[in-house]
């Protein structure tokens, strides 16, 4: 009997380890996905002023600090019990859509494209974004442009691309200038063109990935994502909808402050990443998935014309509920189209230039929950404060956490299908890493843990001795 460990997993955010146990015949007996570092944000923020939480928790992640800023600011709005000015809400939505565009572009073009464009079995030395640039320069250039567009908006609004201090409890710090609005609008058509071309390209290539679609985390689970009262996809605000594996809406429009009635968190022996589960079903049966695929499965429609056309085609191809984790990539591209349409709608409304952007208040409630749909899925910040405003307790449920159980199952499925322990190849193990990448996990976020983007694979015998080891970086 052998055991393979993939540690660290490459081209993801954060540190992960995969252990694959083989039986004496070289077949996969068991797998385990674990996250190997902890950071402890929930603990060390105790005692700090609640209004400093957005700035502190944004440091959980450098890829989507905007998500943490927004979820945290929304939790602070709840503690202040304020209704933020309408333009502040619009500006927060705008920066959020921009962040979705840049983060999804990063995931698709930089992290996962090397697998589909260069091949799962291609030389790992060049199976990276530089390889994509060499082999598919036009697509790589467009990916860089698209990400740049998202960051252009973030920078235009918030003055900084990473960790801006512009999103504040009660609203945003400054209004949008006419010049910035015009600049974003002038660059929008090019971004839309890239998004549509990439989506067409990906759809055209889907036939090449039949095996991946069939075996990459393709199993029935529940899905969750935020929607409005009509079931439209919502990314900034709304209620959480849970849809069953067979397509029934199990719970609808769950408000942020009631999340804990539906989501439980299990601690796993070998991982610093907790495993949220759907409480009414319990652990470990209550597996649900979030993120682009979870959202497109949970929502009834997107609510914007082009994205809705793509949404319908997506579900025509893969059913009311699409179960393959490989389709996260597809869903991500549809969401980029949606985000760009929403950006245009927001900017076309002149009220976006209103200047009263912030409400102020002290502590008016001793508890607050902020929930948004981050690029990787539902993000929940939940704080309790003293009457003076000091944090007494904090709980963060981060997108990748929700997917933890499903990622574990996906690793098992891919390993069982692709790994033959008697003739182990790097390409086999890369497929295991690739299914993890499909979820675009942010492990630094989900454990609130630090680290390099890497994964390690180890092959152990029945007694735990290392037979083979593969490091990726």
């Amino acid at each position, binding site marked *: 009997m052998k055991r393979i460990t993939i540690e660290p997993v490459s081209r993801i955010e954060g540190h992960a380890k995969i252990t694959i146990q083989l039986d004496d015949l070289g077949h996969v007996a068991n797998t385990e996905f674990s996250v190997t570092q902890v950071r402890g944000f929930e603990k060390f923020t105790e005692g700090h002023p609640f209004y400093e939480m*957005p700035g502190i928790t944004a440091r959980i992640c450098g890829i989507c600090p905007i998500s943490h800023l927004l979820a945290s600011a929304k939790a602070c709005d709840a503690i202040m019990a304020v209704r933020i000015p309408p333009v502040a809400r619009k500006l927060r939505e705008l920066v959020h859509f921009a962040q979705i565009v840049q983060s999804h572009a990063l995931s698709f073009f930089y992290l996962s494209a090397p697998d589909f464009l260069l091949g799962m079995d291609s030389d790992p030395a060049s199976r990276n974004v530089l390889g994509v640039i060499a082999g598919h320069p036009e697509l790589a250039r467009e990916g860089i442009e698209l990400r740049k567009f998202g960051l252009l908006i973030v920078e235009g609004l918030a003055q900084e691309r990473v*960790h801006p201090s512009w999103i504040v409890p009660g609203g945003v710090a400054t209004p949008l200038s006419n010049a910035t609005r015009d600049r974003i609008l002038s660059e929008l058509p090019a971004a839309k063109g890239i998004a549509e071309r990439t989506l067409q390209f990906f759809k055209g290539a889907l036939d090449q990935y039949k095996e991946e679609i069939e075996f990459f985390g393709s199993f029935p689970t529940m899905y969750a994502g935020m929607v409005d009262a009509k079931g439209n996809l919502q990314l900034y605000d709304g209620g959480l909808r849970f849809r069953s594996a067979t397509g029934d809406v199990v719970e609808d429009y769950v408000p942020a402050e009631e999340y804990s009635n539906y989501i439980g968190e299990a601690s796993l022996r070998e991982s610093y990443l907790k495993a949220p589960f759907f409480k009414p079903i319990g652990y470990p049966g209550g597996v649900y998935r979030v993120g682009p695929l979870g959202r497109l499965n949970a929502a009834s429609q997107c609510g914007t014309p082009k994205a809705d056309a793509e949404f319908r085609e997506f579900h025509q191809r893969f059913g009311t509920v699409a179960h393959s984790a490989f389709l996260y990539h597809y869903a991500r591209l549809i969401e980029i189209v949606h985000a760009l349409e929403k950006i245009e709608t927001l900017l076309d409304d002149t009220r976006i230039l209103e200047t009263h952007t912030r409400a102020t208040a*002290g502590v008016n409630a001793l508890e607050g929950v902020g929930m948004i749909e981050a690029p990787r899925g539902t993000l929940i910040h939940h704080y309790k404060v*003293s009457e*003076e405003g000091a944090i007494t307790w904090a709980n963060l449920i981060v997108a990748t956490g929700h997917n933890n159980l499903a990622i574990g199952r996906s690793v098992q499925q891919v390993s069982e299908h692709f790994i033959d322990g008697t003739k182990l190849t790097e390409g086999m193990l890369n497929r295991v890493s690739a299914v993890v990448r499909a979820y675009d996990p942010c492990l630094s976020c989900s454990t609130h843990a630090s680290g390099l983007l890497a994964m390690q694979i180890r092959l152990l015998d029945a007694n735990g001795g290392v037979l083979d080891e593969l490091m990726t970086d």
Partner: protein
Amino acid sequence: MPQKKISIRIDGELISALEGQTILQAAKANGKYIPTLCDLDGLTSVGACRICLVEVSGSERLFPACTTPIQEGMSVTTNSPKLTRYRRISVELLLIERNHVCAVCVSNGHCELQTMASALGIGTVGLAYNFPKLSIDMSHPRFVLDHNRCILCTRCVRVCAELEGAHMWELTSRGIHARIVSEMNEQWGKATSCTSCGKCVHACPTGALAEKGWAVEEMVKKIDAVTSLVHRRGAQV
């Protein structure tokens, strides 16, 4: 009787100053820059931060410019590789002593400690961080005291005692255990002598004392309002 004028040299230049002035006062009066952190125009000098150390000819030891009186014929050097080294060490020791996390601080971008570190070229700190577990007093309805960000300059103590006349702030314990305390170690919000004037907040060089509710980078101190008040009231130090 007018104060006696005496002559000293600062960085080789002969200047005329008033007897009883400190090296720092004489330097300022003659347009010479000496870096400081704990000093605040109009308040008693205490020599707490050791950033204003200068060299005086004839002595091997360094002298804090803010508390050393001038003497006839004194020759002072305000800038040298040795002084830069000492000043850097002083600032690095302040940085490692508590938890100065600029990135998430309300005073980021408006902090005198940060500005000084930058001016001295401190990009990285070579000494091991202390990472103490320190409390934050949020009991006051308008203001907050974060010990993590305090450098014990005692500007708050002095501005409260000397300008506001309340003497609500005090220093307790010694060395690494020293802390700013409000009214006999009572919570700030319960301190009956606090007038809630906010002078301590605006005199504070870092984010240790701040107005409640500001997010990262938003706490801009009105230090000029404090010093101009000193002069409008005619205080003499």
